[in-house]
């Protein structure tokens, strides 16, 4: 009956976290959902903290843009993970990029580890780890469809980066395909008033 789904994305500068959140938010927007998205990132420098919050709902969102509790998370790196873990709602889900997230998660949530960097590289898109993860997230949670993600990604890529569209599409598909959909991950919209 939960009508608002929160997703936290975290990583370090250069991993494409903000773009990933953007793609997901646009995908949900295309599907007529209410969407709110807020990103925090350091300056121009590489290697800094980068976080983002996406809330998707089927009625006007009541949550403020900085959420205290999240239904789900995608963590591309563990460097800035510590303060985020306590925010996860019990019964939620977290996707970890196994390639760069080495610590353990003890929160009472479904934990899914994926070798996103490798999968991205296999898909011919070495920088596409986050795309892989949101593809998998779509498969696991059903919050947005894969088609919407692809469309959202096309929209989000700036005109001078058009050449990356195909590689990103491959990464989204790869992630979607690699997700273990049989683990009983919590699904969005089930029982919601859609």
């Amino acid at each position: 009956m939960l009508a608002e789904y929160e997703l936290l994305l975290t990583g370090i500068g250069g991993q494409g976290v903000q773009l990933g959140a953007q793609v997901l938010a646009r995908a949900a927007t295309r599907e007529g959902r209410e969407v709110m998205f807020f990103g925090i990132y350091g300056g121009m420098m590489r290697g800094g903290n980068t976080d983002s919050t996406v809330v998707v709902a089927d009625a006007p969102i009541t949550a403020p843009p900085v959420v205290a509790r999240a239904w789900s998370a995608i963590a591309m790196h563990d460097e800035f993970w510590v303060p985020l873990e306590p925010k996860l709602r019990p019964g939620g889900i977290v996707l970890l990029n196994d390639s760069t997230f080495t610590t353990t998660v003890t929160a009472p949530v479904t934990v899914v580890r994926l070798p996103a960097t490798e999968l991205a590289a296999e898909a011919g898109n070495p920088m596409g780890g986050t795309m892989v993860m949101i593809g998998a997230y779509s498969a696991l949670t059903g919050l947005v469809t894969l088609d919407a993600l692809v469309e959202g990604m096309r929209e989000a890529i700036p005109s001078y980066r058009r050449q990356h569209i195909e590689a990103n599409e491959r990464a989204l598909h790869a992630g979607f395909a690699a997700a273990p959909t049989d683990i009983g991950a919590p699904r969005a919209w089930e029982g919601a008033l859609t």
Partner: protein
Amino acid sequence: MTTTTTPTRALMEGSEALVRAAILADCRFFAGYPMTPFTEVLEHFAALLPDAGGVCINAESEIEAVGMAWGAVATGARAATGSTGQGLALMQESFSEATLAELPLVIFNMSRSQGDYFQATRGGGHGDYRHIVLAPQDVREGVALVQLAFHLADKWRNPVMIYGDYLLAHTQEAVSVERVEFPPLPEKEWAVDGSRSGTGRSRSVTPLGVTKVGQRHFGQEGKAQYIATKMAYVEREARAESGFCDDAETVVVAFGSPAKFVKYAVAQLRDEGLRVGWVRPITLWPFPVDAVRAATRTARIVGSFEISSGQLVDDVRIAVAGAAPVEFIGGVSSDHSGFGLGRLLDVDEVRERIRALHEGRPQPPVPGYEEFTYEPAPHQLAPTPEVTP
């Protein structure tokens, strides 16, 4: 209920949505100078106004920006400027005089915190001027209030400020920027265009209370009195909303983005069975005195939650007028850059502050606060001698 996708519905950051709303409200001139977190408002105006047949100038400074907007408004065009704290401080002379000149200027204040509440509601300009100040809680409301701002500015020939913040500017939402309809307004007979020069009926847009020889003459005093009495009518534009106040023992007042946190936290506390409620001023000036008074009717205690060292709390105290004690439950808080709203703006933090207020406990410390608490020196603790008989 799923909202249907309309062609104009899109994910966009608050700044862009506000700018699109302004253009929809026929804003055709903007001038500004970059300053975080206002910069994007300027950028979107620069990107979007020319195609709408308007002009956006990247002014060389804030004072020049407000001057340019002053000129544009004087021609009858809908025009705006904006900045954040420091930049708006530089515009204060123009803001107060714009009130005397009855210029319907719209001001985008993308503030760095809520510590500019006094600046917005009482200003550092001189004299008895007041601006209508609209404080949207989120992007969706911002789209409506920006259009209202242009309407009210023209309705009252008075500056109107949009008080936003870092979150409003940068949060992206799926929004559809749609036109809000308002009742028609009279022609701007007072605006200049040169066409009446030499006819004996030329016009004066001026804060000085002067007119042309032979026209009704105010003088500085008359103009100031005229404006002061006008303000009494403008006070009718006060707006607020409230929730859970019918039987609330504890009522929290908050505005802007932080109000969303308060509303969310209050809903959680209600789920726990606590009789708490909230009231949110939408206009900071005119302050919704009646709404706040009504919302706090059953209150044993009232809290003012704000990201500042306590400014809104003054207006709450004036409104509540002793009917219940009013406590300040906010605090100074920002991110390390000084631009964002900081660690205090967190639903858990906010909820615990409201709970403490409700239960009569002292407020928990602001996260990180202890470290920078002021330690007075001995000479500062000694009383200063009397100097007059």
